[in-house]
């Protein structure tokens, strides 16, 4: 990939992340940290590519560990975030759903 294209992607992504978080109420900080923890679980995809290209034994072993860890990040991040968010209920349940 062209270095400048990458720079543009990085720059825009950085501003996006900043914007998304800056309007979050304090009560959602922990779930959001957990949610963003889940989002970087996309590393799983890269780990799969690395393992899929591995040739020697060492490469395969490290690639295997990468996929293992990446899957743990993605799945674990999702489960704990969902469990946390499940608990946010308003006292007037009907109205909040609308």
């Amino acid at each position, binding site marked *: 990939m062209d270095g400048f294209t990458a720079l543009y992607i990085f720059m825009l992504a950085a501003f996006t992340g900043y914007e998304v978080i800056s309007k979050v109420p304090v009560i959602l900080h922990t779930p959001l940290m957990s949610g963003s*923890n889940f989002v970087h679980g996309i590393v799983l995809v890269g780990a799969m590519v690395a393992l899929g290209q591995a040739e020697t034994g060492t490469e395969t072993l490290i690639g295997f560990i990468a996929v293992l860890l990446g899957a743990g990040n993605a799945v674990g991040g999702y489960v704990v975030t969902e469990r946390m968010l499940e608990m946010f209920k308003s006292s007037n349940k009907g109205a909040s759903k609308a």
Partner: protein
Amino acid sequence: MTDFIVNLAYFIAAVLFIYGLKQMASPNNARSGIQWAGAGMVLATVITFIHPQIHSNYILMILAIGIGGGLAWYTGKRVAMTDMPQMIALYNGMGGGAAAAIAGVELLKRHDLPLGVQLMAVLGALIGSIAFSGSLVAFAKLQGIKAFSGVIRFKSQQMVNASLFGVTVLIGLVIAFSGTDYSLFTLFIFFVLALAFGVMMTLPIGGADMPVVISLYNALTGLAVGFEGYVLGNPAMMIAGIVVGSAGTLLTQLMAKAMNRPISNVLFSQFGGGTGEAQAVTGSMKAIESPDAAIMMAFAEKVIIIPGYGMAVAQAQHKIQELTKVLTERGVKVKFAIHPVAGRMPGHMNVLLAEAGVPYDMIYDLDEINEEFGTADVALVIGANDVVNPVARTDPNSPIFGMPILNADHAKNVIVIKRGQGAGFSGVENHLFFADNCRMLYGDGQKVASELVNAVKEL
């Protein structure tokens, strides 16, 4: 054609991640947010099986996803809400480790990468390794594993850490600039030193600062993932990684600000190193029994409850919710005041209270409620200490001076539920406990709270 499908799937996944995070920013949509992001993750993962660059090890891939995902699923479902912070640290560490391992595979191949790509691979390896081992130490500390708990310091620690970091970076640069000429041994040493630095950096940091540290490592993992995404030419990783990197950095800053301590202060541990004599405490602690405390609250107009980490440890949130209910039924106005760093994570208390069934519109931030303490009849402090310590306002020599606190001492009466007479996490004596309007209710949080519920019911 496959190329097109894969890229399209990654593009959709990136959109879903950002949309999901955005949804998570409001309590009503938060749950759908994680589900959208989850859909993006599933899509990206499934499509990767037809990725044109993958040509072997499919069985191993499925096996690794099964084991890693299965274990994470099991632990994530089973863990108690109070232990959430360390689980986040653990899963985050895994992500950092995965990013570092990807770099490991790429660098092991020693294929002739352009300098920029090789630099990014090394940088991602460094950051990912630090996030990995650092998060694991944070996990161990929060889990209360003996060898890591507490603050571990030794002489000229900062010098040692700085030199370790310097040497690691230097070796990393050598690898990045030597094309394909670096030896595997150099690579090995590089990873070992980076991992060691993550451990060394986290050891001296105390439990109270862990939320900030976990958030920082979360941001670091995001960056590492983004950089490795560039190495692999994977835009979904680049976008998701950098979005988390910058969001996490902002979150870390917000947390450090809430504690009124610059991040550098957290990392290089100046805590407890207050200069000069602390102000002497005047007065004495005055105990109260549950029935009397119950009467005070039952006949009050307004009660503000201040929960802290102690509530989580005692698992008292359900009893507190019951107390809230019986008081509300008697016409008492009950509100919760949450300090930004109460518990081990910002929002930790909110999550626990939400779990217990306390409606979130009864829960207020420091800024929203601090003026109201003056009109409250009772401030009930349960398991909180430093966040209500008035010396933060009055004593410039105190290590917590300047930290914004909840003005519990402005309430007409203060009741503190506490296990023993010790000081808070910071080790600072709490002057609130010695104030004339303060009564101490000693005992286990859960037991005391249920006594209060029964006493109020009997009135």
